[in-house]
């Protein structure tokens, strides 16, 4: 189903990636749990767009539900600019990233603002054709509206089969509610 949606949205600014729920790279799964809160029963798969601004779990009318989530996300404006320079060095990638805050709030640890780097491979490892090989993150110390911060991130994806099919996502998110509630994506870029 997810791969069918990937084909359906091939011409749109959307990427579909899959993590191992028992050993998820980076801290992205924390966004799902932050959006969920507590209580109730949760079933696989856990799905989120915009860092948890919308989530889903368990058996649903997959195509209809996921399509609605994506379409809603596509209608939302970006709130940051990202310029990314990626260079492969041996079996790792070096990222030089410029993040400009286009929102109206200062990004900082007070609202859990972070920059994420996710590396995935076009490979059918589990259920879909895009498997996350590595992910990491950096805190955003203090970035007022309109200001730009630079980051250098090195990441070494594990288990790559074909380096020509390795892609990356750089994503900035924050928690609008401060220390509670769902996170939200400011912007992401894909290479």
């Amino acid at each position, binding site marked *: 189903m997810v791969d069918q949606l990937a084909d359906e949205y091939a011409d749109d600014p*959307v990427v579909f990636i899959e993590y*191992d729920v028992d050993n998820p790279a980076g801290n992205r799964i924390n966004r799902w749990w932050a959006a969920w809160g507590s209580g109730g029963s949760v079933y696989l798969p*856990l799905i989120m*767009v915009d860092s948890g601004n919308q989530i889903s779990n368990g058996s649903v009318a997959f195509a209809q539900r996921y399509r609605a989530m994506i379409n809603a*996300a596509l209608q939302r404006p970006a709130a940051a600019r990202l310029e990314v320079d990626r260079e492969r060095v041996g079996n790792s990638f070096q990222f030089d990233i410029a993040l400009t805050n286009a929102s109206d709030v200062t990004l900082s640890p007070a609202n859990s603002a972070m920059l994420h780097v996710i590396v995935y491979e076009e490979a059918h490892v*589990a259920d879909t054709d895009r498997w996350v090989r590595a992910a990491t993150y950096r805190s955003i110390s203090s970035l007022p509206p309109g200001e730009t911060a630079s980051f250098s991130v090195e990441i070494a994806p594990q288990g790559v089969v074909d380096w020509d099919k390795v892609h990356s996502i750089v994503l900035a998110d924050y928690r609008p509610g401060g220390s509670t509630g769902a996170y939200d994506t400011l912007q992401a870029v*894909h290479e």
Partner: protein
Amino acid sequence: MTRSLRAWWLVVLVASLGGAQELYVPAAAHNSGAAGTVWRTDLEVKAKGDAPASFTVELLEERTANDDPLSATFSLEPGASLRLVDVVDEVFAFEGSGALRLSAVEGEILATSRTYNNDPNGTYGQYIPAFEAEAAAEHGYEYVLMQLSSSASYRTNVGFVNTTDATMELEIDLYTASAVLLGSVPATLRPYEMRQIPNIFTQVTSQAVDDGYAIVRTSTQGGRYFAYASVVDNLSGDAIFIPAQLEGPIGTPLAPRFVVFEAFMRYG
């Protein structure tokens, strides 16, 4: 007042001096306006410092290219000033409105102007400065005209002067004071054209706007211009002149949001 040889030799002379002082008075008139108003402009020019000065004043007529404008030349003794009363009519024998361009031929000059409603019971005037040409608004930046009103009591006219020899596109976004965009008005200015858009808010809304502002920008590379608003009391004909102020550089539009669909599944 000649358009021909005098203008030619002045151009040659000014060019030979290089970087000669040039001033713009964005609005001047000898005409009748809305609500029974009768508009006149007095121009005052002074020789700067202790040196004599001479200058040309050119009329950039409204709604036309002004490659060869009407012009006149005056001389000033050291320290002297000169008032050109009803300058549009008395100097150029022109009925209508436009902008004035002053060029120092000798020495340096200072200039001011007053455009007023010539009411039989007394005049109501607005001071209109003479701006250095270098102060013109430019491509890549946005400018704001604020303290605008449009209602039964007030109307807002906005005006522009193209200070270049190329056609220029302008966009005027009209907002309420609470930053609600009411609509946009485009304008095209031919070389050195002056254009005033009367009662501009009525082009985007039928509602009264007690307090609003306009954001002005040009999409034309190299575009330079002056922008102003004139807010007129509909009852008295009293007007205030509001010059454009720099709002800031035009921001690069944000790229569309890139959506990341993340699935956490059980491997194996």
